[in-house]
Structures are given as C-alpha cells and as structure tokens.
C-alpha cells in the first residue's frame, strides 16, 4: 500500500451529464477502461482513456471507499488529478436489477433480430454487456 500523506492524494472528480457526483481526494482510483481495468495512483503518466461498462472504485483520501457503476465514460489521468466523465454513474445499491434483467432480455432480442447487419450486432452486444455488468455490480460480484 502506498504511503498516503496529503501531498500524495489524487484530486478526483466524477462528472455526469446532470451533476457532479464526486469532488474529493483519493489515494487510488480503479477505472474500467475498454481494454480492462486500470488503476491510477498519484504521479501517474498523463492518460486519456475511454471507459466501458464496469465499476469505478475510489480508495482512501476524503472519498473513502466508494464504488460507482458506469456504463460509458471518458477519463483524463494527470499526475495529481483524475477526472472521469461518465454518461451514467450509479451506486451499486441504486441499480434496479429487474430493469437490468429487462435490458438484458431486450439486448438478446436485438441480437436475435440483427439479421446480417454487423452494426446491429455491435449495438446489441453493447446493450448486453452494460446489462450484464449492471447486474453483477448490483450483486457485488466484482
């Protein structure tokens, strides 16, 4: 575990289209990038990355232990700052599992009806992935 004196905390902001959910400091932030999870610590190299469906987890600092489910987002990592743009961000206990199940079913229907259109498969796949991540996040399986 890294030494977390005040000078070595990341300033973390989580911004959604309708509000600023988090504006705090943390010692580490886990991010669900498209190609897999990455963790940002103080002094990290500047990075711009796209976030897929998954959980953003904050550790230490004034943020404490916090977890948010995000469906799509974008993150800027600077040595002393992490800013996350998320299209939707929810606390795991805010997730409506029944609604997520319905979304999953809808996604599977989209998949069945996609015919020979590659783009339709892509969008069906995206819906299914988000729904699956949502369900597992709500059930605390991560």
């Amino acid at each position: 575990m890294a030494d977390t004196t005040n000078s070595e905390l990341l300033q973390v902001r989580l911004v959604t289209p309708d509000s600023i959910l988090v504006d705090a400091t943390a010692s580490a932030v886990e991010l669900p990038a498209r190609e897999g999870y990455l963790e940002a610590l103080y002094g990290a190299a500047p990075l711009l990355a796209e976030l897929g469906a998954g959980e953003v987890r904050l550790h230490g600092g004034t943020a404490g232990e916090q977890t948010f489910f995000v469906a799509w987002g974008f993150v800027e990592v600077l040595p002393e700052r992490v800013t996350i743009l998320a299209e939707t961000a929810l606390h795991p206990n805010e997730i409506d599992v029944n609604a997520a199940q319905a979304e999953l079913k809808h996604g599977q229907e989209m998949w069945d009806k996609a015919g020979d259109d590659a783009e339709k498969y892509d969008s069906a796949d995206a819906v299914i992935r988000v729904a699956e991540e949502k369900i597992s996040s709500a059930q605390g399986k991560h």
Partner: protein
Amino acid sequence: MANVLDLRRRIRSVKNTRQITRAMKMVSAAKLRRAQDRAMKARPYALMLTNVLESLVRRTDLIDESGETLHPLLVEREEKNVLVLVIAGDKGFAGGFNSNISKAAQKFIDERRAKGQNLDMEPIGKKAIGFYKKKYPAAFYEHTDKAYDNDLAHHIEDIRQRKAPVEVAAEHADILLKGDFERISELANSIIARYERAEIDSVYIVFNEFKSVISQRVVVEKLLPIRKLGEHEITASEEMSEEQREAAARAAQTAGVSLYEPEETEVEREAKKFGTAEVDYLFDAPPSKLFRHLMPRYVATQIFHAVLESTAAEHAARMTATDAATKNAGELIDKLSLTMNRLRQAAITKEIIEIVSGAAAL
C-alpha cells in the same frame, strides 16, 4: 347597471383568481430556479466533452490519406431533406412561449419549402406534438425482411417512403417531463443513424435559448453537420422585445429570481482545462476510434442543453405570464371596488336626500 351585491361577488371571484395566479407564479419561480440549477450542473460535462473532442481533433487529421472524412457527422451534403427538432412546452398558460416557437419554426419551414427542400418535423413537448400532428402526415417506413441462403440469414431494413414534402418523423412526449440524458441519447442516436444513411442531410433545432430571465431568445440552431466543435451555429434568432424584458424582470424581482446569469463555478473553470494539459497523453485507443465514440455523445449533449434551456425558459415564461395576470387582477379589483363604492355612496346619498326632502315636506 350592476348593483352592489353583484359587484361584491365579482370582486370576490377576481380575488380568488388572483390568488391562484399568484400561487402559480411562485410555483413557476421555484421550478425555474430548479431548471436553472440543472442547466448549471450540466455545463461541466458538456464543456469537458467538447474539450476532449477538440484535443483529439488537434491530434488527428479530420480527413485521412484516402480522402475519407474522420466521422460521418462531419460530412456536408447538399440539403435536400432537412430534419427540424422543435422544442415547445408540455403545458399552456405560458404567455407567448409556445406560439413564439411555432412561429419561428413556421418561418423556417416556409423558407426551406421555397427552396424546394423536404422537411421532417420532430416535435418535443406535448404542445408541439399536438400542433404538428394535426398539420402534417406521419412519416412512413416500409419494413422489409429478405431471407437468403436458404433462409439461414435475413436482411432486415426499414425503408423510408416519403409521401408529402413535410412529414412528422417522430414525436417525443416524455422527454421534457423526465429530461433524463438516457432518453435524449436514444433520440440523438436515432438522428445520427438517419444522417449516416443519408435519409436526412442536415439537422436544425428550434428552441428558446435561456441565459437568464432577461436574456433569452428563440433560435434556430444547426446541429448537423458539425462545422466547428463547441460552437453554436445559430441560423436565425428572435430577441425579446423591450416590453417583454421589463415584464420578465418585474416578475423575477417580485418572485426572488436572479436576473443575471449565475457565476462560473470552480468546477466549470477546471472543466475548461479537461484534456488540454500541455503534456503528451497516452491514449489507450487510437484517437480516431475515440473520436467515433465521442461524436454521438457530443450531439446528445447539444440536444440535452437545448432541452434544459427550453425548460427553464418555459417556466420563466409562465412566471411572467402569471405575474401579469396577477397584476391585471389587482387592477380589476381596484376598478371594481371604486365602482362599487361609488354605487354604494350614491345609494346612501339618495336615501339621505329622500329622508331630508321627506322631513322638509312635513
């Protein structure tokens, strides 16, 4: 001529009306404050998204070696089929709010029709839906499902069959009520899909822009194709008249709503710097790929912004209208009270004269 009793009833009724309009004004003012607050909170996200896109644009070429444009939404075509999003309110009693918007939209429709262009209307809000549904036919899509490879694969497509020069492409009644980003994202994706398959060649949005109570206008904004990121391309606008501005300012002052734009917050100032630090970022994916994923979100934020501003403007318009109604009711009560008092005094005077002259006759 009306008697005292009639007048007293009339006054009581007008007083009741005044109480209702006054309450409506306070409700609208509270809703306006909330709407303004929401619009403020939405700004950092929009700023950041625009910034990321801009910094990506600086790092990649918009047109690659093969001459292909980086994103279909940047492609400009001759405008033959134009999509118009019209944002009005869900309810009436908001002064000229709804009619101003439909007037601006009608002007746009007439101009474009004169150029021989076809239009697709897409109303948002119950008032606009009611108006355009009556006026224009709904767009028709032919559903095709072709099986091939011995029924192993299907090609499914909905093909647009245009029957009239102006048609209603879709309607959105629930967007204003909830105003959630998810619904607007869906709308943006459907518009983008239509743009990409060249069903439409440009997209405009007609709405009431709202900076503050005294600074608003009805605008026609070009949404697609995107010419310059982060800039609002306004093609027509209708400013408030001096009279409207005064009425709005009076209503706002008595309801305790600020007349000025809220100040920039610290988060907003920092949002402006998002993705623009003077460092070499590592990208986890090629910028062109990121760009593709960001563009639809950018369009959605633009529409979201318009919806939020329009909602604030609607509440402001209702606040102004109900304030004027309250004021008129007050004036009417004064006038009626004066007439009633005169009548009563006249009756008293008449009675005294009768008594006095009766006494004199004895």
